[in-house]
């Protein structure tokens, strides 16, 4: 397994507040990695630094051997890293089809020719919202909106998908459907990194977990081991059960 995205010594300070204090994290090809941690542990900052929203104070982000530290947001997806947001998942005033058309039109054409879902229609079919193609995205129910967000990220033809709390606001049935979709990605050559604090979701999705607390990584390894790590239990449950 080769390393796709290699994060080394990543620091981010906002004034006097240290949001990330030197994170090392490698995402391997073909895996679904989960990044968990309590609120304020630095999960979303990590996400924002990698996707070019914030510039890091120190450290490097290497993508397939190339240094991509601090490059602008629109260059990230052109390099083959797709990502979804917790909020603001779609273009509300445009139809579902137009949403996906825009995303498809701006995917770097050279990126991947072997992509499983090359057209807007095939993407909508895959996530299961083809029947909503002509509706305005702004009137979609929340579950369908999440699926549209996923379709948009997929449309950029990524080799790695970063999902920021993809199941937030979904009910159990919708979450299960989402897990079913995400689990298919590695077979299509898309590695996944999920950021969330929903342990149930993480156990369903990820074989490997990394745990953040106060801007540092406190655990990294197979999901089952990490969940029994005393340090992780301390952070999550305030001590041994």
């Amino acid at each position, binding site marked *: 397994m080769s390393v796709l995205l290699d994060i080394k010594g990543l620091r981010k300070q906002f004034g006097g507040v240290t949001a990330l204090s030197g994170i090392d994290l490698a995402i391997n090809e073909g895996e679904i990695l989960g990044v968990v941690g309590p609120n304020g542990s630095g999960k979303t900052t990590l996400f924002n630094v990698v996707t070019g929203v914030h510039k890091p104070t120190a450290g490097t982000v290497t993508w397939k051997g190339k240094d991509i530290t601090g490059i*602008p947001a*629109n260059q*990230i997806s052109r390099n083959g890293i797709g*990502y979804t*947001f917790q909020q603001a998942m*779609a*273009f509300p005033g445009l139809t579902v089809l137009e949403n996906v058309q*825009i995303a498809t039109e701006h995917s*770097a054409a050279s990126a991947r020719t072997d992509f499983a879902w090359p057209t807007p229609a095939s993407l909508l079919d895959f996530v299961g919202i083809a029947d909503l193609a002509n509706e305005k995205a702004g009137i979609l129910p929340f579950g369908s909106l999440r699926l549209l967000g996923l379709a*948009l990220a997929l449309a950029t033809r990524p080799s790695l998908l970063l999902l920021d709390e993809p199941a937030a606001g979904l009910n159990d049935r919708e979450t299960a459907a989402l897990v079913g979709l995400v689990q298919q990605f590695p077979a299509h050559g898309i590695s996944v990194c999920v950021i969330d604090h929903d342990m149930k979701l993480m156990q369903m999705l990820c074989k490997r977990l990394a745990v953040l607390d106060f801007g540092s990584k406190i655990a990294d390894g197979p999901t089952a081991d990490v969940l029994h790590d005393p340090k992780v239990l301390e952070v999550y449950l305030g001590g041994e059960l």
Partner: protein
Amino acid sequence: MIKSVSSLRSLAPVLIVLLLLALVPLFSPSNRFLSLAISAGINIIALYGLSVLFGQTGILSMGHTALVGVGAYTAALLARDFDIGFWVSIPVAGIMAAIVAAIIGIPSLRVSGHHFVIMTFAFGQLMTIILTNGGDYTGGASGLDMGKPVTMFGADLDALPRFYLLVVAFVTISAVASWAIINSSYGRTLRAIRENEKLAAALGINVGRHKIGAFIVSGVFAGVSGVLLAYFLRHISPGQFASFPSIYLALMVMIGGARLLLGPLAGGILVSFLPEVLNLDPVQSRILYGVCLIAVILFLPNGLIAGIADGWTWLAKMSKRTPAAGNVPEAGR
């Protein structure tokens, strides 16, 4: 890619209206009417550009007549200093206004919303100050004369009915150009930026470049509009391009509706002719404009045309539902 059927349906009504308007000189209208119609048409050309910027990209400019001014002064200076006529002035003024528009657009990369509106307002004022203090070169506060008539194939287009037809032709070109932009993948990209800038960037769209691009496109329309204005009025002065006329332009595009192709046409005609039809003096008409603006923002946020279209679909739905509702007992469950 252009979706042929549905997008042609948006162009057809505009072309029909313009065709009918082109027939107006046959009914020997008064000079007063033609002058008003020509000014309205010149505004509408700029409005089609403003609708790309505001309607598609979501950036409101309150300094847009400054760009019209760039076009008008370019035409007047080319005629005075280089003896260059109308047809060469059109592309040159378009390019000049586009360059200035790109410069106005640069702050939009860092500033947005109300703050940017204020900056464009300030830019409009700045432009007036520059033109007023330009000495003999810009003619100072009294402005410049345009000594040349518009000629085409040796024929003089200066008579009002002919100039009217020239303006209708330019409005038609502007409408078709605007339509082509709206229905292209470029138009979709601009709408994506309007709807959600952050997501647009995440999908690989260079938001900054496209915002500047929208300014450049709207600048070309404004420049062309300015050339026509200079040749129509025969005299231009800085006051015409200050912030108040800019507010009128923004008002027209909001009243008509910035997102639909009929919007700029309807807005331009309404705002130009309403005071005339209602026989209002300038003070009264300003009050009317203010009331209209508030009413449109409150009740028809997408403009008059979109409001009428929504009302129409609502009526159609209601008339369809009424008999059906009678068949289904209300206490069905």
